[in-house]
């Protein structure tokens, strides 16, 4: 008997909140792999790229052990992501993963998933995307992902990577959501470093995908969205109306909004707030949260209370939550691991007109270097230019 058939199906609520957990000291790649083991995944397809490869190699071992029903290496990222489209349309639970340049190569397909209402989980192990070539962590690629209509979760550490991945399958397949869920993590800092991860028994797994209870019918070559992939450009007014196209685009955003309640239920909210009363607030996602936590601790040692808002969900973006958490703030600092400051832009557009705080334009690192806590503290204490 294959191993997945020996696992006991339990409800997501039991698996996430009630099942006893044991601690393991594992890498982020291993944490994602352990989530897949418990995820009742049908098919995993990817193309190798550092730092994603390690996870997908391990997922290959899960296939060999009998936890997955199918697994293969695609010809490239375009092929991998297109295969995801086909697999998800047939109603099975799907997983893929990529990093930096690989994600950029397949981005057209990634951006088509939400419109086709395809539930799946897409693991993103962030790395530098632009020249000069580097395999180091830098999350510039998430700036592009924010525009695609995917749900985008950004994990801080190994524990998050396990929890978000497992919850991602369930959120993705909720009827009112029916969208791909991207679970991003900063490469190497998390994927190749060890941390404590609490996990339920590997004898448990999620229920299978209920493909007949989703927002669109499964594969059917006579009906959109499948037919859209087959036929001429949908902009042709005798194919579907412009108004339908517009309403369809709106529906992707509406579905993203509906995912809020499930992210709140399964991940405990779209944000986490440390020192909510502080006048200076740090806002960060991913590894920048860990660096900010340490900066908050060091600032406290120096006699200054600094707050921290961890953003778990980049799409949907926690607008209302941020407005409330920053209502009292006088200074907001946004540490980031990319040169363009996509999170800073999000924060500014969300808070514009809602708060009186000054929003600092940094600090940022890029190209794969880490962010020393001293760098954050400089912005806290020395008030770098706004």
């Amino acid at each position, binding site marked *: 008997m294959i191993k997945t058939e020996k696992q006991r199906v339990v409800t997501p609520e039991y698996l996430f909140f009630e099942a006893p957990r044991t601690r393991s000291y594992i890498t982020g790649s291993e944490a994602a792999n352990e989530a897949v083991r418990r995820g009742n995944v049908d098919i995993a397809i990817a193309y190798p790229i550092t730092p994603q490869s390690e996870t997908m190699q391990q997922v290959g071992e899960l296939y060999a052990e009998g936890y997955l029903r199918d697994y293969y290496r695609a010809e490239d990222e375009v092929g991998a992501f297109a295969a995801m489209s086909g697999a998800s349309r047939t109603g099975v639970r799907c997983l893929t993963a990529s990093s930096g340049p690989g994600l950029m190569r397949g981005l057209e397909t990634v951006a088509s998933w939400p419109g086709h*209402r395809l539930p799946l989980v897409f693991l993103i192990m962030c790395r530098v995307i632009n020249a000069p070539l580097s395999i180091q962590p830098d999350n510039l690629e998430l700036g592009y992902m924010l525009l695609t209509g995917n749900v985008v979760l950004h994990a801080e550490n190994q524990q998050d990577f396990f929890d978000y991945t497992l919850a991602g399958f369930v959120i993705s397949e*909720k*009827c*009112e959501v*029916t969208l791909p869920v991207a679970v991003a993590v900063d490469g190497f800092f998390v994927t190749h470093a060890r941390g404590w991860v609490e996990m339920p028994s590997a004898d448990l797994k999620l229920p299978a995908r209920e493909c*007949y*209870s*989703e*927002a*669109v*019918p499964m594969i059917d070559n*006579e*009906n*959109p969205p499948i*037919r859209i992939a087959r036929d001429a450009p949908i902009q042709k007014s*005798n*194919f*579907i*109306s412009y*108004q*339908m196209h*517009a*309403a*369809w685009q*709106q*529906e992707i*955003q*509406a*579905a993203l*909004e*509906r995912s809020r*309640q499930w992210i709140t239920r399964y991940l405990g909210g779209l944000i986490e707030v440390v020192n909510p009363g502080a006048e200076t607030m740090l806002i960060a996602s991913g590894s920048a949260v860990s660096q900010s936590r340490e900066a908050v601790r060091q600032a406290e040692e120096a006699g200054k209370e600094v707050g921290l808002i961890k953003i778990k969900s980049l799409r949907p973006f926690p607008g209302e939550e941020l407005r409330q958490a920053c209502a009292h703030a006088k200074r907001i600092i946004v540490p980031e691991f990319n040169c363009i400051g996509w999170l800073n832009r999000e924060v500014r557009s969300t808070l514009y*007109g*809602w*708060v009186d705080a000054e929003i600092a334009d940094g600090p940022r690192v890029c190209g794969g270097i880490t962010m020393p806590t001293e760098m954050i503290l400089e912005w806290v204490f020395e008030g770098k230019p706004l």
Partner: protein
Amino acid sequence: MKSCTPYCITTGPAGLLPPAAACCGIVLPEKGQGLVEGRLVSEEAALEVMAQELLSRKNPTIFPGPLVLWAWKEGVSEKAASVLELAEEIPGVRIIPMPDYRPIYPKIDPEAVINPCHPNLTIWYNKIEVCVFVGVHCHFANITLRMIRAGTNCYTITLCHSAGHEDSMASLPFCDVEQVRALTEAVRRLKRQGLRPRHGDACGIQLTHAQQAVEAGLVWRPA
């Protein structure tokens, strides 16, 4: 400091491209609740409003979708029968199906079907001022509802098998045979209490010209 007022989902025409209600802060009801014009209410209150609107507005029409038109799983036939039972209680009601979601070339026959590509054509042609969606996949129901709100004055009711629809004026989630029968009972109760239906002189389900032709064994060709 900014503040915002609650968004309401009222009958249109709402303009070229009204926003998706979910993006305006309207959330879906839980099991046992309903949604009326964007407000969460009890299931009973939602049923009451639906019954009232179905009896008092012009040309009530039921739009059954593939999930109740085809006996694709156990229980569907029973649900379809309950929808017919509801129809029989609404004087002057018509039933125009949304059998699938295919784009129809070169144009739809608005007497025969409603189609998500041009739902407004069916609403306008048949002068429908209140309608019920039942058994339509949620994605297509949502985009259709938004287009109806944009361009017509039709009051939209959704009996959803899943989580409900923010863009309809009245919505009931997780709607099974029991809830459809409860709506039928609400319609009966209002009539017993003296509410005179808008089309009180009409008896039973009204066939469209297309349906009359088909019933008479003729091949129907739209004009």
